[in-house]
């Protein structure tokens, strides 16, 4: 179907924005209902222990308190925290909505208070007396695997929840044949996703219609609908979930949380609406964390610096329970372990470990930034060993453009790519030669200056549903429904519920072009399970790749029917109707119908079209046949202050390939945001627990967030290699920035410190850590 791109490919400003820039959008905490009560949680102060006593007598007597619940009230009446992925053989214990006898991490909900307003609820929560007989906690994941370590679940006799083995038949032989081998032990530290809007829930059980309406800040409203229905033991038809304006997610809002399941139960019990909007401390402590891996990586390479094989052993922190997709995340690390390189064999073993800490789950990139970090560190290490240029080592290892679809030794099939073109464009854009000269000049003046590089690919738009680890009750398709109004205006309902990505704009651009209509005649609706037939959500860079393709498919169905109607109205055959930009004409004839004409005819049905039903609408679900692999190359330059260890990023260049782009303005936004998030992990972010399992980073005073003045202007450029796996040729963009920017910055810092003899550093690259490395290097030379 020929499409005149008028809107697609243009930097169209967002249709979401007028309400957002005027403060007139509705986030969950903005919802206010008649008779609404407010919840506050009483949480464990200890990482591990037995609950001796919960005394709510004093709290119950406080003014405005409606109810206080503990596990005693819930047992047998409500289900558990949803866990969708439980690995084969995994030691798994259900996680109760409120701690039942045992607490296993700091911040675990122990009781919930419901009161007339937020202040009364928090006052009462503070007045609930909880006595916990605390014990030693398992905190460090490596130590947790040692004999005699405190056990998160004593009944399992171990903290090892599961082992995932991905052996490759050729690995040992290639190691035996290798010119050289090296071993790196690398930390990918635990971080917090930190959406600016924390989790928020309003549950409203209406006893009359026997229906629950749940406003919740989620990336996956349809999953929440199922999970809450199952948890409450009511038919899912009795549940409507609304994800209104959602203030960021970054993976943290994929899971349905215990709190989201508990509030509906309370509302049903009290027959009153109940709201809970978490504090930042609750968000930092008790919404899922990301990353949290320690990997020992053996690398076998030949004399030219080509990697022959990798052997990885990863310890992946599960935390104290299995979050909804938590166990799935480390499997992506193995899947992407070979990166964009022609590595012949990859063997990987992943130990999923319980510790007395908050659970981990998806965080922007979800397992792939970890993989990219490991293989990029390996590339730099090989360059150092062989005295080769770091870019040259990558050149020698990149998969050739004619090798696609490329079958990686991890089992991944890479859809398309031209890594060389992207690398050479980045080398030119960055002026790699000039940058080396400038760095060397700076060094000769006594400065610590470095250049970083990362070449990377990632896996997006997960699918097919049959080919991924089997999560209960969910596929990896996405839905779209298009409804054409009698005027020719179009309502789009997408299951890819967004939280800042801009689907309302991008999908409207596409639909406007398909039908040759004004973009203001397209309305995109999402995030309401009573309106959107069914859906999966926005995560894993799938919004456009999977959700957009579903919109495309529904539009094609509508165009096909519109063409049949037009043929009848034009007194011709379907084959003789030409459709171009929403104008229907007879081949070789003068008569024309617009899309609005056909829409009107479809609704008025003044002329009955034989074999057709009145109306014009279509539903589609896109099930991906495989995953897409966007890729890119990042370069940066840094300097480090010798006296203070302060790191300054002088320049950052990103050349990326995400296939075809619908809206470059939005695409830039996704890339820039991702890059800074990835740099945040490298620079300053880390979730830290002390040895007793106490969280040390529970406010923005202690959890260092990337801020505006920490970064230079990021320079963006791109290449375009469309994906053959979807009709849009899109590859996915949301997570891209976080894949490459993290190893790129570490690469630059190690380059800057190389003259001091420093060859290893773990993230985050805080000034204190760099200062110590500089001091130690100075001391060892003195």
């Amino acid at each position, binding site marked *: 179907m020929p499409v005149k791109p008028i809107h697609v490919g243009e930097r169209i*400003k*967002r249709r*979401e*924005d*007028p309400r*957002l*820039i*005027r*403060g*007139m*959008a*509705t*986030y969950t*905490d*903005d919802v*206010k209902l008649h008779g609404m009560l407010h919840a506050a949680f009483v949480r464990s102060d200890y990482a591990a222990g037995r609950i001796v006593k919960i005394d709510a007598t004093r709290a119950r007597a406080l003014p405005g308190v409606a109810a206080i619940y503990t596990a005693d009230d819930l047992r047998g009446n409500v289900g558990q925290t949803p866990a969708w992925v439980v690995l084969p053989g995994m030691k798994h214990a259900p996680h109760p909505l409120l701690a039942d006898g045992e607490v296993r991490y700091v911040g675990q909900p122990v009781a919930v208070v419901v009161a007339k*307003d*937020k*202040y009364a609820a928090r006052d009462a929560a503070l007045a609930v007396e909880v006595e916990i007989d605390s014990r030693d906690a398992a905190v460090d994941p490596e130590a947790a695997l040692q004999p005699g370590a405190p056990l998160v679940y004593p009944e399992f006799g171990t903290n090892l929840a599961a082992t995932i083995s991905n052996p490759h038949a050729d690995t040992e032989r290639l190691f035996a044949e290798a010119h050289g081998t090296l071993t790196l032990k690398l930390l990918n530290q635990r971080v917090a996703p*930190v*959406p*600016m*809007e*924390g989790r928020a829930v309003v549950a409203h059980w209406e006893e009359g219609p026997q229906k629950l309406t749940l406003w919740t800040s989620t990336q996956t409203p349809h999953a929440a609908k199922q999970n809450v229905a199952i948890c409450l033991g009511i038919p899912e038809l009795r549940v409507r979930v609304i994800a209104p*304006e*959602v*203030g*960021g997610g*970054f993976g943290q809002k994929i899971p349905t949380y215990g709190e989201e399941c508990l509030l509906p139960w309370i509302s049903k019990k009290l027959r009153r609406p109940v709201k809970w*909007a978490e*504090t*930042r401390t609750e968000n930092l402590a008790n919404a899922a964390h990301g990353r949290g891996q320690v990997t020992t990586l053996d690398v076998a390479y030949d004399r030219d610096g080509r990697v022959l094989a990798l052997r990885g052993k990863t310890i992946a922190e599960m935390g104290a329970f299995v979050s909804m997709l938590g166990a799935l995340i480390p499997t992506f690390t193995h899947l992407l372990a070979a990166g964009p390189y022609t590595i012949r064999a990859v063997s990987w073993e992943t130990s999923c470990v319980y510790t007395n800490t908050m659970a981990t789950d998806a965080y922007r990139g979800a397992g792939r930034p970890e993989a990219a970090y490991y293989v990029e560190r390996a590339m730099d290490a090989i360059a150092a060993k062989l005295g080769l240029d770091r870019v040259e080592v990558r050149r020698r290892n990149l998969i050739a453009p004619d090798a696609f679809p490329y079958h990686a030794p991890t089992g991944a099939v890479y859809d398309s790519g031209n890594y060389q073109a992207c690398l050479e464009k980045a080398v030119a854009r960055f002026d790699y030669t000039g940058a080396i000269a400038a760095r060397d000049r700076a060094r000769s003046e006594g400065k610590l200056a470095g250049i970083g590089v990362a070449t990377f690919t990632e896996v997006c738009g997960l699918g097919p549903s049959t080919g991924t680890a089997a999560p209960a009750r969910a596929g990896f398709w996405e839905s779209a429904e298009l409804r054409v109004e009698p005027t020719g205006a179009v309502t789009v309902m997408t299951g890819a519920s967004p*939280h*800042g*990505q*801009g689907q309302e704009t991008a999908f409207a651009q596409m639909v406007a072009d398909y039908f040759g209509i004004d973009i203001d005649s397209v309305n995109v609706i999402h995030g309401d399970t009573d309106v959107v037939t069914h859906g999966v959500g926005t995560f894993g860079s799938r919004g456009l790749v999977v959700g957009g393709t579903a919109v495309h498919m529904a539009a094609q169905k509508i165009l096909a029917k519109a063409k049949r109607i037009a043929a009848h109205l034009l007194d011709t055959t379907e084959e003789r109707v030409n459709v171009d930009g929403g104008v229907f004409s007879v081949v070789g004839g003068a008569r024309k119908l617009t899309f609005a004409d056909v829409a009107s005819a479809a609704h008025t049905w003044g002329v009955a079209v034989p074999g057709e039903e009145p109306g014009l609408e279509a539903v589609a679900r896109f099930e991906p046949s495989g995953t897409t692999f966007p890729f890119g190359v990042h370069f940066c330059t840094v300097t480090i202050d010798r006296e203070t260890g302060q790191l300054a990023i002088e320049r950052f260049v990103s050349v990326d390939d995400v296939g075809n782009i619908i809206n470059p*303005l*939005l695409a*830039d*936004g996704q890339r*820039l*945001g*991702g*890059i*800074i*998030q990835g740099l945040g992990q490298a620079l300053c972010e880390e979730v830290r627990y002390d040895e007793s399992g106490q969280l040390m980073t529970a*406010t*923005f*005073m202690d959890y260092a*967030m*990337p*801020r*505006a*003045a920490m*970064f230079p*202007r*990021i320079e963006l450029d791109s290449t375009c290699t469309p994906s053959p796996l979807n009709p849009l040729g899109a590859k996915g963009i949301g997570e891209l*920035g976080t894949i490459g920017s993290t190893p790129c910055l570490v690469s630059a810092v190690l380059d800057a410190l190389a003259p001091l003899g420093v060859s290893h550093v773990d993230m985050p690259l805080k000034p204190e850590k760099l200062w110590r490395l500089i001091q130690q290097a100075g001391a060892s030379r003195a």
Partner: protein
Amino acid sequence: MKIRVNVNGEAQEDDVAPRTLLVHWLRENLALTGTHIGCETTLCGACTVHVDGMAVKSCTMLAVQADGCDVRTIEGMGELDALHPVQRGFWEEHGLQCGYCTPGMIMAASALLAQNADPSEAQIRHALEGNICRCTGYQQIVNAVQHAARLAREGK
């Protein structure tokens, strides 16, 4: 305690508990929910409003401290057909994604431009140090503020 506060040009009288935070009073009592709560500890800036023309984080100011003051929130910045230059800048330059930090960013940026009509990029970044955005990586916010400064200087 009885308070009188001029909010977005309208006189408001109320009787509030002394511990009521300004942000809660604006959101709960005046239904001005455009001012968001991001941390309740003055560290993220999502709740930034203007008090007597100064950018102030309303999560760590009591409503009673605003007694007798002029408070401006995001809702008082511009109408759909007459947006404030900073609002236009954010729209034109894609200075927002999820939008949660945006009202605070707009209030902080407009306070900057009121003091410095032509700030450098470094000055813009410095002025926004107290406002966290997790989505944009700040660059398009900087572009938005520069765009707004241009519009304001050109009297548009």
